[in-house]
């Protein structure tokens, strides 16, 4: 899909594909809601929705092309299962806290899931959302952080180290878990724990570009489309 469209952002898609698939196939109930705060991983979301038959093969082929519903970042409308258009980092967590609070006020039991990136936590609004989630005890909110250690123009520790994001989040009155974001069993176990009285944050340690040799753990996997060579190598590795 990415190769056909010559589209970038593949690295960040591959780091969160496992957790998205686990969420949708093993954790979320029909009425639960997901906000992809790291909107640039739309490709991973579309692929996940395709795996649930919410998008067709033909839909995926239109990715990034003219007149598509499948833009490089999720659209505000038009795709079943995509409730918010995102793409500017730092919005999704706030959207999710609002959803969760609104559901609580109305006594509804739907759960809200939010997938964000580690670099995204450099946006001040994420901390506004964290404070709110903790203070309001949004126990119907689960936030998964795709922590692949890389961002737009460097490693997260090189650009704006938080000397561990997870420690900083843990200082708030929320639940925190840290797991291998590519281990399906660990993902399922962490996400499916019984609900507590607090918002839940799960730091998922991941590898950007996971699954494509020569792409894994590299910053260029954020932006650059894969080359013909990389594509062929990856496809034969899959076979």
């Amino acid at each position, binding site marked *: 899909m990415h190769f056909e469209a010559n589209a970038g952002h593949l690295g960040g898609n591959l780091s969160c594909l496992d957790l998205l698939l686990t969420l949708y196939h093993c954790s979320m109930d029909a009425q639960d809601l997901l906000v992809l705060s790291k909107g640039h991983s739309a490709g991973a979301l579309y692929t996940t929705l395709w795996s649930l038959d919410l998008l067709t093969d033909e839909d995926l082929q239109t990715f990034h092309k003219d007149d598509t519903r499948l833009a490089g970042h999720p659209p505000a409308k038009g795709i079943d299962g995509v409730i*918010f*258009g995102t793409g500017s980092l730092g919005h999704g967590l706030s959207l999710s806290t*609002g*959803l969760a609070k609104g559901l609580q*006020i109305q006594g509804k039991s739907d759960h809200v899931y939010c997938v964000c990136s580690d670099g995204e936590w450099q946006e001040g609004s994420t901390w506004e*959302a964290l404070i709110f989630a903790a203070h309001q005890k949004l126990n119907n909110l689960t936030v998964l952080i795709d922590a692949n250690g890389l961002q737009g123009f460097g490693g997260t520790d090189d650009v704006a180290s938080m000397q561990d994001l997870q420690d900083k989040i843990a200082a708030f009155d929320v639940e925190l878990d840290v797991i291998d974001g590519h281990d399906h069993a660990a993902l399922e176990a962490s996400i499916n724990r019984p609900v507590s009285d607090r918002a839940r944050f799960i730091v998922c340690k991941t590898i950007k570009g996971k699954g494509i040799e020569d792409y894994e753990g590299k910053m260029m996997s954020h932006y650059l489309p894969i080359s013909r060579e990389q594509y062929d190598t990856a496809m034969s590795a899959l076979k």
Partner: protein
Amino acid sequence: MRNEFSRALSALGKSEPKTVFLTGDLGFNALEPVREAMGERFINMGVAEQNMISAAAGMAKSGLKPWCYSIAPFAVYRPFEQIRNDVCYHNMAVTVVGNGGGFAYGSMGFTHHAIEDYGALATLPNLRIIVPAFASHIPEIVNQLSDHDGPAYLRLGRAVASAEHMAPDQYKPHNRITELASLQVLVVGPMAAPVALAIQSEKLDATVWAINEPFAELDSELKSLIDSGAPVLVIEEHVQVGSFAANLAINLANQEISPSLLHSICANRILPERSGSEEYMRALSGLDERSIVKSIEKILTKRSTTDVA
């Protein structure tokens, strides 16, 4: 207008269970009745406007009808991207309330002025923008917004109690508030009534229109007057770029309506090193009543000289 607003929201909160009120830590000594009326549906979101707006969009998605409140500059400038992406582009039923638009918080200094707000917001899709002229219209406006299934911005200002009698019984986006005369004076928001009083006091040949919704379709009577050659003066507490006047000019041009005269008085003198009351700040831009009367007299004199010629 804050007290009227507080009363209207308290009533709405009691009658409409889906209403939620979010404040960015403001409203002391004004919004307590709203808090009492709404209980857990009144949420102080703290000093966090970006989260307030996005969370409101989330709440709207969940089925509630959120109102977000702060002073105008804080309600608009800091969370502009959130208003754009999360509220407007999603066409969410969220009303953003900015108290003290224009120079209402004059002596507080430039960070507390809002003279670029509705122009910047008017670039966004789906947003209904209301700058009420009269406090007595607030209940009607609140009711309309409560039924409005989309985004809105409500810029509240300082109403003039002695001029409230000029409020027409029926609220309209563009309300003519005086008898018909030669010059059409279009005033955005709460300055309309004091301008009308000044014009009446000086017995000037001018009609005053309260422009409550600067980006609504032009009132048909007003459009017809302009099309028939009536000269127009626009007055607003907003900079020229993004103003009602600028947008009006383009719209008229696109409809091939050439006004015989179109002048505008906008907020245009900003002195970062000086501050003062609302009156002082308005006067710097020629938006005080005395300057406006002079501007009108000048236009009328010039017109009568031209007519004679």
